[in-house]
């Protein structure tokens, strides 16, 4: 069981959260020409590192806020958590 410290609610069990994937991926800026490669990078391509991974989680059964979690994908150690709009 993972225990994730929601920056809004405190330490909660993994059961309250839904996973949202890599949080370092940036959506291409709109109002400009966006190439197929840029869309491909955004929608499909992922680094998926072994080790530290900054990722989105959704506190769906809690405060319903999206948060960022800095977690190790090999050991599951959680180093820090952030609000979704915080730059890391």
């Amino acid at each position, binding site marked *: 069981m993972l225990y994730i410290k929601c920056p809004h609610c405190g330490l909660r069990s*993994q059961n309250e959260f839904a996973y949202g*994937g890599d949080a370092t991926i940036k959506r291409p800026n709109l109002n400009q020409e966006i190439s197929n490669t840029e869309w491909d990078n955004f929608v499909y391509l*992922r680094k998926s590192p072994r080790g530290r991974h900054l990722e989105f989680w959704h506190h769906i059964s809690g405060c319903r806020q999206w948060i960022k979690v800095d977690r190790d994908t090999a050991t599951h150690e959680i180093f820090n958590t952030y609000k979704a709009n915080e730059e890391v």
Partner: protein
Amino acid sequence: MQKYSVFSLIKNAFSNHKNWDVAWKDPSPKSEYDVIIIGGGGHGLATAYYLAKEHNITNVAIIEKGWIGGGNVGRNTTIIRSNYMHDENGLFSEFGMDLWRKMSQDLNYNVMFSPRGIINLAHSDAQMNAYSRRGNSMRLNGIDAVLLNREEVKKIIPMADFSENVRFPIFGGLMQPSAGTARHDAVAWGYARQADSMGVDIIQNCEVIGFDVSNGQIKGIRTSKGNIKAKKIGLCVAGSTNILAEKLNMTLPIETHLLQACVSEPIKPILDNVVTFGAGHFYCSQSDKGEMVMGGDLDGYNSYSQRGNLPTLQHVLTEGIAMFPFLSKLKMLRTWGGIMDMSMDGSPIIDKTHIKGLYLNCGWCYGGFKATPASGWTFAHTIAQDRVHKLNAGYSLNRFSTGHLIDEKGLGTKTWIS
């Protein structure tokens, strides 16, 4: 190589079975090979075997970080099937079914292929319609499919929950009678033994540290046992694909996730098919030892840990008990996990790459084991001929950017879509 037969068994009995040849040798790597396959799992071993058998390329090394049979080939739920709707998946998998049927003879190794049939249960009228469509698509591709109604399913698996007041009543199911199971370890050992006998070097406990690439051409690899040169290198490393891709400065449409499986204590024979729950993700069969072999969803977040988390196991087994209530009385014997190369559309990739001489085989998601022979056969063809075979032409690396996705179920890394 010593041939396994009843006669060799009797002959060796006289010497107390002390004089059997080793199944495969433990060589040191040479400085150069024609082809290097990275990853000594089922797919890597099968690739080396078919390179030797179909293409007469025997100066081949398999580089394995751990040991033969220690990865996903020994961690799956042994299900073999070709019940796919899309042509790319159906034709590829049905080609594999033929290889499965002949495998024990081909390899001179009993892989205990057991075509016991798979039943996908349906729990609504809409799901029956969808199965009817999938079954018809399968039959158009020459794959056997039978649509069963509730009574027919009840005759085959009377122990399932057929009561009236359940949340997901059984409306019927889609059966592929020729699907089944095989002994997964035997598949790895059989391929390893034959590949070794044809001259392939199986190098275990050897980790790939880096690649030598110059002018867009692969030149060799750097490993924990020294540098090895080769003009052709095949990547066949399942959940470790992203780790090696990073060393090649490649970013792939793959995420590594953890998939768990478990077995119950052994019980008397009760289930002689493979059965899947249609209102979630749970599948079950009974091993020859009597254990109920069960699996289901991913843990749901990127993971390299090869060790599962209990909330997912509880979720999966809740579905199992909804389907087969008797499972609640059984004790759990073992649980384990493996790391999966989850592609973004849920279908695999067997293709060339932008680096000349570097070939990629990954993205097997939940279905790697049953694809072992067909994956090895087509990957060997792709490497030997430097072009994809028509069976794996759809499994291209660039299909994500061109929009030619094979969305059989469209699940990929995002389990919550189901």
